[in-house]
């Protein structure tokens, strides 16, 4: 198993990663045009398809997805094993959260890959 020390180091590093990738995300959604316009399917440079078409922005969404998935579910793990201590509980919590985190990452990655492909054909 990965040691607690390593997990917490990754927790902090993903925190820093979210700081950067999150700033890019919030910046593209809020600062490039009125939010309502950016939430449209297409029609302006930073509308949803415009973002996914751009390999750098799509890649930074994937990075954000990975960072947040680790950070959030490791955070929940810390909370849940602070709640109650026993080897069985810790084991169950760790496995259950790993599975949920993986499902979220797979689903989100699917969105990014398919949206990237669709977006190439959108004017």
């Amino acid at each position, binding site marked *: 198993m990965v040691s607690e020390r390593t997990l917490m180091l990754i927790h*902090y590093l993903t*925190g*820093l990663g*979210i*700081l950067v990738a*999150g700033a890019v995300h919030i910046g593209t959604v*809020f600062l490039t045009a009125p*939010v309502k316009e950016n*939430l*449209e*399917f*297409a029609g302006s440079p930073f509308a*949803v398809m415009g973002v*996914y078409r751009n390999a750098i922005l799509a890649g930074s969404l994937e990075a954000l*997805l990975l960072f*947040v*998935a680790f950070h*959030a*579910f490791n*955070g*929940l793990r810390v*909370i849940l094993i*602070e*709640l*109650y201590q026993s080897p069985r509980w810790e084991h169950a919590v760790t496995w259950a959260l790993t599975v949920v985190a993986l499902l*979220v990452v797979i*689903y*989100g990655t*699917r*969105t990014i890959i*398919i*949206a990237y*492909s*669709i977006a190439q*054909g*959108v004017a």
Partner: protein
Amino acid sequence: MAGRRNGLAVLVEALRTWLVPYRYGLERWSYTLQRISGVVITLYFVAHIVETGYVVGGPSVWTIRPDAQQYAERVWTETIKFLSNPLFDAGLAIIGFFVAFHTINGIRLFLAHFGWGLGRPTRPEPMHRPQSMSPTQRALFWASIAFAVFALVYTTNAFFGVLA
């Protein structure tokens, strides 16, 4: 701990220490808020990944179909229509508040854990303040509150246009 206590007693005690920061100083407030904001953002994150899944047409889409683009556009347009109501707008403003707080307070914790901006250790005389809450650290805590309030106002304005 004397013996094994039942699960409910453990849960009640844990929730009390986590959720009632009153009377233990700033650091406890920071701890409680960091936890609550972390859990709230996590719930939002999962919902957000489900929501953005509709950009390509929802959970059933795993391949590129011939009408992929028209289908995705129709589904996403319906999705944002469904999400455009004051309830979700208010929810986003609250998420903005928590994200802003968690980010700046997270930076504060980061610096504290790596030993930056802390006071020198002193003898714990009665009424002393923990050196982990040095003036720098206190300032960062208040900065996170200020930024969170700013984010609340900013997102409320962006979604409702109340200040327009």
